[in-house]
């Protein structure tokens, strides 16, 4: 663990993911334009903004699920080399996505196989990278269900029998089982009630720090951003209008729009 930590610290000064001048047009409409950002190892970056501000488009571009109209995204591979993701072949890109990356979606039904048991869902990535020992796959799946607080006796139930919060936790386990270095999250707490949200955020926060994950999280909920992220970018009309340390942006917003956003949060 210590060797692992020092390893990570040593590479902390080099960014993991770099976006330069990223843009996406949907016909004549603009999804997002001229976005440049860097994500460092072990860092949580929140992308906030109102609906339609281009957050999800940006996440799609960063994770190569969408093809960029302009600009490029580079990623530092495990060998330390920064490579342009558009230059990767489909095989390499898919391998990257199912080993070194994770993607937690807002609707768990999009990120899970709903007709496959919880154990199968967690084990899928392991089998995809060549695990062929049932006992070991099951052991690893049980371990991961425990880490996301799902009882071990639910391992053979399929996600349709799970509550919304459990499904979301299962989705997280499924993504983290291959020990990725970068995880994209699209409104992971959306649609959950507040107490479940709080538990989920707590879980994400501890897993992120424990595993030293880098996370790009899209959210419209500033409280989520405050709790999880180190840095944040504020988007409006497809552009990044403000970036900075989370506390700094939320406590002392510079842009009028950010001030409006921060002041719109209801205090309980």
């Amino acid at each position, binding site marked *: 663990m210590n060797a692992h930590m020092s390893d990570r610290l040593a590479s902390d000064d080099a960014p993991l993911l770099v976006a330069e001048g990223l843009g996406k047009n949907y016909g004549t409409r603009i999804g997002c334009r001229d976005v440049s950002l860097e994500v460092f190892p072990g860092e949580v970056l929140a992308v906030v903004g109102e609906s339609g501000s281009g957050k999800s488009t940006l996440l799609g571009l960063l994770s190569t699920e969408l093809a960029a109209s302009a600009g490029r995204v580079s990623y530092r591979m495990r060998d330390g080399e920064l490579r342009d993701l558009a230059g990767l072949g489909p095989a390499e890109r*898919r391998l990257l996505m199912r080993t070194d990356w994770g993607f937690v979606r807002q609707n768990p039904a999009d990120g899970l*196989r709903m007709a*496959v048991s919880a*154990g*199968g869902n967690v*084990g899928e990535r392991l*089998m995809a990278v*060549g695990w*062929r020992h049932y006992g070991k796959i099951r052991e690893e799946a049980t371990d991961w269900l425990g880490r996301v607080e799902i009882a071990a006796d639910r391992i*053979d139930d399929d996600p349709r029998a799970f509550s919304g919060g459990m499904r979301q936790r299962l989705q997280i386990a499924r993504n983290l089982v291959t020990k990725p270095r970068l995880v994209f999250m699209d409104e992971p707490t959306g649609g959950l009630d507040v107490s479940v949200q709080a538990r989920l955020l707590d879980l994400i926060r501890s897993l992120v720090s424990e595993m030293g994950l880098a996370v790009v999280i899209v959210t419209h909920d500033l409280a989520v951003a405050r709790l999880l992220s180190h840095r944040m970018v504020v988007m409006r009309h497809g552009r990044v209008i403000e970036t900075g340390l989370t506390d700094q942006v939320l406590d002392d917003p510079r842009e009028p729009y950010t001030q409006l956003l921060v002041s719109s949060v209801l205090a309980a």
Partner: protein
Amino acid sequence: MSAMPEISYNFAYLDEQTKRMIRRAILKAIAIPGYQVPFAAREMPMPYGWGTGGVQVTAAVLGPDDVLKVIDQGADDTTNAVAIRGFFEKTAGVATTTATTEASIIQTRHRIPETALTENQILVYQVPIPEPLRFLEPRETETRQLHALAEYGLMHVKLYEDIARHGHIATTYAYPVEVAGRYVMDPSPIPKFDNPKMDDCPALQLFGAGREKRIYAIPPYTSVRSLDFEDHPFKVQRFAKPCALCAATGVYLDEVILDDRGGRMFVCSDTDFCNDRQEQGHRGEMAAPAGEAA
């Protein structure tokens, strides 16, 4: 009646251009073992699900000197087998047989004959659903991508689910195989009992799916490995009793219900194999005594 001209077909029903097209697909399929080659399947004078794909493949490889055998679930005398045998007798005039050893082309539905095949034989399978990943990944665009990149983790998810639910791999037919170390293939709904016979088989194996318009192949002497887990290795079905008619063991048996009081017998599903053994004097517990056989 004499004024009516007799309807005549081209040899083996299909026109020569169609046969050329199918042969090209077959050659490509042989060149890339286990890969599903699309082809322009024709309407055949039989419904989908009755072997339109197999019939087209047979028609394309059939010559006037060939001897054809057709089996359905191992039997030569069931509806599907009789209909297709009759079809080729009428449209190609080829000799037909029920003896596995005498046939040069064997069209089959759901079984591989018990008698070992030879280099001089072609086995043609009727395939309902050629895509092994179909029920795991419904998008055809995605399954093609998975085949192209040899991403077959999903196939093991299915086997994992089997073990999780039943304690063992409960898939008993259409058991997925890896051909020549590359493509994962659906061997058509043969019992997994027959899977080991596909491995290193001297005969050419061709698969035709008419509705889905796909042809694939296993060339002679190609490795065919059934997928499994290290701690749950592939196993074939075992039968507690020998065949009730010919006393054969180590063959695939069909259950036959005899009455409504739980009476049943297990007999060879390969009728030709069973008849041969009975002629050689083997007698199972429910067979008629020698000399009285029907």
